[in-house]
């Protein structure tokens, strides 16, 4: 009877990183459901395609790094990156766009820095930023919302979407479906030009109420998912709340002073990828600040940057850039926001 010799502690909460990742993926489902309902199969196909690409790239890199495949693939971090990219990219993004974004995210932004836990930047956002800058046309072709998009005959069916994404899948005799693309509300608002906000909203040509409503519901879906994750203690409330609060405050400030030129806060909060960013992207633990105070500063920084870039920057949706910029700052924030240890007087 040989007794095991290990040192304490002998108990641990059963679970591993894969469980956390899977839970996060599950939490995106409400938002994904909304997206699929309103915008068709595109996002789902993109997610599947991106996952395949991600797993392939990760396997390749792990083989090069001589790591055991099963152990590293089952932490599902690659799949989570793929899911986030699939949600962020336009639903009709060509297959090669997704391929480039995902491949770059996995290989360069994650493994070249040392693998999971070692990357300083959010890999999904790195991939997104790369393709946004490289392929602006494709990245700004968003599908117009089609209510009951999955109803047959009304909108793009599954295979139509598939064909749009993978044009080489040629079905003999099938006609290409002409998708109706439309800018996102944020995009549209940014490029409204000289007309005032009120006119902008009144004009249905620029943005339709359905489109706006669709985007609102998508954002609310992501919010629900995020709240569930907070409930399950996957992450704390600090980053999402501080980010949204900062964004709200800033947009409120500017909108209150000049309503005709600045978007009202709800547009910022519910239009675009704000909610997705708040709950799924900014809270990525590897790249965020770790201390409680640090998280507040980090989230607030993202919120402020989102507003700045959206209003005065070149891009309509700034979540990716804001997050990446705050990734730079996170270590500095960590350094200056260490909590006071028990028994010590608080210094600095």
């Amino acid at each position, binding site marked *: *009877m040989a*007794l*095991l*010799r*290990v*040192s*304490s*502690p*002998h*108990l*641990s*909460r059963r*679970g*591993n*990183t894969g*469980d*956390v990742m899977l839970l996060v993926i599950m939490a995106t489902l409400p938002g994904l459901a909304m997206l699929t309902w309103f915008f068709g199969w595109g996002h789902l196909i993109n997610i599947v395609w991106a996952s395949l690409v991600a797993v392939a790239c990760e396997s390749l890199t792990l083989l090069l790094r001589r790591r055991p495949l099963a*152990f590293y693939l089952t*932490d599902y*971090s690659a799949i989570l990156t793929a899911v986030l990219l699939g949600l962020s990219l336009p639903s009709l993004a060509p297959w090669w766009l997704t391929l480039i974004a995902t491949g770059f995210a996995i290989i360069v932004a994650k493994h070249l820095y040392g*693998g*999971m*836990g*070692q990357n300083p930047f959010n890999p999904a956002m790195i991939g997104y930023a790369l393709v946004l800058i490289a392929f602006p046309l494709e990245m700004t072709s968003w599908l117009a919302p089609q209510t009951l998009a999955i109803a047959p005959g009304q909108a793009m069916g599954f295979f139509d979407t598939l064909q749009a994404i993978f044009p080489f899948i040629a079905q003999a005799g099938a006609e290409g479906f002409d998708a109706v693309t439309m800018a996102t509300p944020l995009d549209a608002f940014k490029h409204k030009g000289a007309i005032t906000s009120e006119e902008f909203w009144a004009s249905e040509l620029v943005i339709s109420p359905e489109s706006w409503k669709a985007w609102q519901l998508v954002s609310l879906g992501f919010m629900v998912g995020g709240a569930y994750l907070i409930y399950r*203690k*996957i*992450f*704390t409330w600090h980053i999402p709340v501080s980010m949204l609060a900062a964004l709200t405050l800033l947009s409120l400030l500017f909108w209150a002073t000049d309503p005709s030129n600045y978007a009202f806060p709800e547009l910022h909060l519910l239009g675009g990828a704000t909610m997705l960013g708040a709950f799924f992207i900014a809270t990525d*633990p*590897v790249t*965020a600040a*770790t*201390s409680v105070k640090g998280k507040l500063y980090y989230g607030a920084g993202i919120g402020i940057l989102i507003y700045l870039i959206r209003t005065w920057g070149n891009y309509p949706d700034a979540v990716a850039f804001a997050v990446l910029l705050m990734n730079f700052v996170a270590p500095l924030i960590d350094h200056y926001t*260490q*909590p*006071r*240890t*028990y*028994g*010590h007087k608080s210094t600095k």
Partner: protein
Amino acid sequence: MNKHLHTFHGGIHPPENKVQSTQTPIEPALLPDKLILPLQQHIGQQAQPLISVGERVLKGQMIAAAVGYVSAAVHAPTSGTVTAIEPRTLPHPSGLSEQCIIIEPDGQEQWTDLTPLTNYQQVAKETLLQHISNAGITGLGGAGFPTSVKLNPSQDLNIDTLILNAAECEPYITADDMLMRERAEEVIQGLHIIAHILQPSQCLIGIENNKPEAVDALQQAIESSHLKDQIRVLSIPTKYPSGGEKQLIQILTNREVPNGGIPADIGIVCHNVGTAVAVSRAISKGEPLISRITTITGEAVKRQGNIEVLLGTPIEALLTHFEVQQDQLHRVIMGGPMMGFTLDSVQLPVVKASNCILATTRKELPDPAPEQACIRCGMCAEACPATLLPQQLYWFSKSREFDKALSHNLLDCIECGACSYVCPSNIPLVQYYRFAKGEIRIEEHERTASDHARQRFEARQARLDQEEADKEAKRKARADVAAAAKKEKAAAQDNGEKKPVDAKAAVVQAALERAKARKAQKAAEAKGSTDTPAADTTEKEKQSAPAMSAVERAKARKAANAAKQPNDSETASEGEKKTGGLSALEKAKAKRAQSSTAPNAEDQATPASEKPQAKGLSALERAKAKRAANGDEQTAEVSTDAGSGTQAKPVKALSTLEKAKAKRAQAAAQDSGETDAPAEGKPLSAIERAKAKRAETVQTPAEKTTPASNTDESAETANKKPMSALERAKAKRAEAATQSESADTETSEPVTEPLEEKPAAPMSALDRAKAKRAEKAASQAADDSTADTEKRD
């Protein structure tokens, strides 16, 4: 009843697993076939055994005494025989061995005489503490700190709160729970005694709310207590690790124990309820600490429960008693699952701090999962009760950046395991911190050792430097004196008149003159000619005349060398004892130089010049003189003075060439057996004497002028210390030889070069040795006399 409770940061809620072991009451102690009692069951110094192998001990008898202040005694848990006192493996994470007393019980359970203190309130505090210390009571909560020390906080600390730690926050352990359920009165009695010693203003009992029966039992016991207004039982939320002393204090009082301090620093003393019971038994019944309640639990034992265990009981006996299933037994932990340590064998004994034995199956506590990459989720920081940053500590420990880990307060980690419990990547965080703490301790140790070594090295360097400096100072002093003398002599010479600068110079002068006179006399005797007038002249001149110039001295030397006999070289040189401690070598060289110059020494008794002082001619001048002497032998102008002057000079090392030349000159000046003007005043230098002797033995037995001169000198010299026996012997010998020698001086063979390593004519080894010894002794004597001269000045 419950006052407002605070909380501590973090904490976890692991599954409690306590219900299995609270189904049955505490079982009475079982008597194993042997008891193993380590002498170190506590924090502090090891106890000292009081008994020897083979002795019979009684139950409760002290078998090992506390050593020092922080130490605890060990008592025999039952009556029996001491079978061994030997090293045994300790129940400790290290698995190291220490001295243990092995007792074989005899089954009689015979108690020793017990001395209770029934009226403890009237007894002095020191007596109570001594009694508790004699009972060997240490903290039974797990740390094992000697209780009497904890009950004696420093005088300047004001203790206002006494806390009894009844939290028992670790899963599986129920020992304190059952103790309180069954023996609450003893707990309160112990509380009374401790409160009497510490005199706090309030007593708090912190107990987790998963022990309602124990709370009730305590409440009942307090009802009948005279302190019941001061005692409060506070039921705290169940959270691990509320039972940690610092955490419990924070919950109950919202005070934080300062970093590096103890709870007494903030006016709080915290004891385990088991310790309180032990104190109560020690004071009221006189029973020492010989048993404790231990929980035996885990799925590998069929029955689970609590048992009162005699200290030293092997765990195997307990496991067997609780029906362990050997094939399922995978891990044996002493303590709880969060902070307990695994045991390698079941032969190890129960000690004072063993509150639980956890025998688990593989399914119950699976093997640790493989470590994954840290995803920086921060759950560890949320769980840490010490508000540390476990993530940062992990990074620093992993990369061996121990100074950064220290600055992140690694040493504040209480190793509770909450961080690794919550880690989703299964990182063994506590193991990393233990590793880092160990490395830091080793580095600290090495640094202290190297600091110590450096201090010793520096002290040694300082000592050596000091010795150097002292030597230097001495040499400098001598040099200064000699320089002063030289300056004075030069000044006198320039002026052409005798001008003793100071009394010292005058005495030196006198000594030199005496030496000269002696030399002259010797020369006179040796030659059989009337040297005395010359000697007298010399003496007179020496007394009156100032030192000759270098040139004159050289000339005189030449003459002297031409005239004198080789074997008399000493006589001249011997007078030249310089005050500044002319070394034997220098003297010898001077002598040699003199003998190599013109042999007319005694004829040229320097009229005027006193013996020049120590530092006379330079080496160059000497060499020149020598060369001149070699080339011009018959100049008989060298006066004793010159010769003396030459000799008196501090002889710098002559080059080999010069040595050879001198030798040749010596050889050439065969018949120049002239003696220099007998030196007066000072005795012949040791070298001179020795060389003379050597020369004598080499050439003819007649060449023994040295002793003659010696005796002359000794007769003439005033203020000389009595000649040593050696010198007297030498003198006698010389005298005997001188007579015969004088006839042979003309035809004496070449005198051996005084400085030669190998004499031209072979000398017997014995003679050489004698000569060397004589030289040394004489030079020593000469030095001493010189010193004496100086002193007298």
